[in-house]
């Protein structure tokens, strides 16, 4: 049993500690005596259908504007179609912040420029410039019901129905009505600070604004992704005492 993680654009999208998500996925898998391989995919690397068949978890983070400028065309023109097919066929993936935005229909910047996304998630993102404040702060949310009711999630969930992290985004994301959010905001901004949604849950993928990184204080989400990726019904228990204590303390401090 081997978890093969494709880590897209690690140099370009490397802000806010999101790289920790890959470290955490690897650590939680290795502790369970399973193999892990991390394949970094950068702008200059070519990928193929075979490559996408060999991986079982795809991760992409968020980055500074310069980083996003460097990977944007490569994503749209080269790698995008492979990622789209991977997701539509049920591949497991996690997208954070900047890369999450790029999975939508488009991103409109403060000066009105429209950047096409991959159109996998039915949503768009708008940056309102100085009109609306940047969404920054600690965030607590409740995982969406269809995840909570998923037997797989119930099997791996050792934490509860909350997630906790930090968000820092200028763009506001508006998912279409029929799109399932990843979570419902308890305290914080989430997608757009208006409709109470946070992130998107689509097929076997999660898109989210959570930094922290997301998986650091939310081991149930980490294990959910690992179990999905490896096609397992459950995972052996890890000693998560300290992580659960941290999770509850943060939910208590920032969730009210």
């Amino acid at each position: 049993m081997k978890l093969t993680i494709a880590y897209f654009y690690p140099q370009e999208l490397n802000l806010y500690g999101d790289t920790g998500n890959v470290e955490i996925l690897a650590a939680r898998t290795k502790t369970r005596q399973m193999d892990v391989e991390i394949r970094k995919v950068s702008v200059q690397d070519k990928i193929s259908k075979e490559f996408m068949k060999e991986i079982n978890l795809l991760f992409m983070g968020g980055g500074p504007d310069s980083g996003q400028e460097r990977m944007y065309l490569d994503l749209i023109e080269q790698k995008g179609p492979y990622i789209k097919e991977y997701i539509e066929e049920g591949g497991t993936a996690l997208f954070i912040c900047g890369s999450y935005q790029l999975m939508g229909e488009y991103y409109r910047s403060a000066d009105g420029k429209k950047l096409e996304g991959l159109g996998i998630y039915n949503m768009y993102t708008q940056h309102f410039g100085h009109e609306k404040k940047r969404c920054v702060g600690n965030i607590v949310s409740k995982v969406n019901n269809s995840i909570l009711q998923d037997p797989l999630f119930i099997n791996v969930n050792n934490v509860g129905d909350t997630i906790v992290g930090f968000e820092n985004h200028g763009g506001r994301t508006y998912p279409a009505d029929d799109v399932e959010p990843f979570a419902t905001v308890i305290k914080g901004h989430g997608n757009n600070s208006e409709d109470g949604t946070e992130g998107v849950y689509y097929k076997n993928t999660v898109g989210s604004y959570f930094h922290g990184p997301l998986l650091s204080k939310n081991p149930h989400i980490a294990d959910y992704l690992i179990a999905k990726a490896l096609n397992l019904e459950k995972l052996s228990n890890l000693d998560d005492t300290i992580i659960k204590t941290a999770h509850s303390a943060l939910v208590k401090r920032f969730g009210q």
Partner: protein
Amino acid sequence: MYVISILLTKIVYRIINILNLGAGYTWPGHLVLKIYPGIISEIKNKLPDKVVFVSGTNGKTTTVKLIKHILEKKDMKVMTNSSGANLLNGIVSSVLLASDLGGNFSYEAAVFEVDESTLPPLLKDIRPSILALLNLSRDQLDRHWETDIVLDKWEEAVANLGEDTVLVLDETQDKFEVISRSYKGTISYFNDDRKFLYSTDLKGSFNAKNVNCAILTAEKLGVRKDEAARSLKDFEFAYGRGEMVREFDKNWQILLAKNPESMNQNLNMLLEEGIDQELVLFVLSDNIPDGLDVSWIYDVRPELITKVCKNKEVFVSGKRALDMAVRLRYTGVDVSGQNISENLKNTIEKISDMDSIKNVTVLPNYSSMLEVRNILVGRKIL
């Protein structure tokens, strides 16, 4: 108006100190700027010929202290701002506090550490004789946002600087290329060569850069390099930046680690030097001067944490102690439950009671560093 501003600054400073409300280096300037925004251009005219600005993510405080040390050894009267006062209000406060009531400023040189985001607006009003730029890396993203944004603003500010300023730059920072390209005046470069570092008690390649930057800056102000290096023999660490404190029968070395780069550099230095500390204490808080986001601890190189903590007693403390404990756990370092406490005072008391421990390494972020010093030394600042 200038004399009134000085008077006001001195009175507010006195009141803050009598009431023990803080160091008093920021509020007076804040008030003066509110009442009289023109104060900056007045200050400009009062400053001496030798004005140095030092900015960058890491190393400002140490570098300013090094420059001051070298110049004072040449019998120059040097004014600096204290490191907690590197925003506009702090800079205004320190100049006015250093002036006499007749409006006279009697220092021969003024060396300021300037916050990265304060630098561009400040450069519009005051053109220093030397602008030393140390580095730029991820720090307090919820305040500075991305380094790219800071770099863009620096580039613009430097391009509008005229040609009278000498730019002193770290040549190992690839990011600074855009700055070199947009500046029309003189640029001098320093690197991490360790020749001069060995004439000080400082350690680590980041300190080699700080020392080289200071010596190069002093050279531009007329001090010979070898002479400057010699004068650093008795240089003492800036507070919380490698500083050694002897207390409770133990040696505590305080190494400010407030962002991924400074944590990496300090861990690297500990590994290079061979650590004889038996105990490592991480202190992580999310007070306003730290920024609210602690996710940066995952941008620290995990293998450095693992190596430094190997066979050591490890403690974590501060408001985000649990976050740090989780982070350490993912590098393979398990901190036992009894070594985790958000209460720093309790943690330090507990460590003090451990007879077997003689040497402690403390890696605190910014507000935690002030708190550690407050507990060990008794005062928050110097």
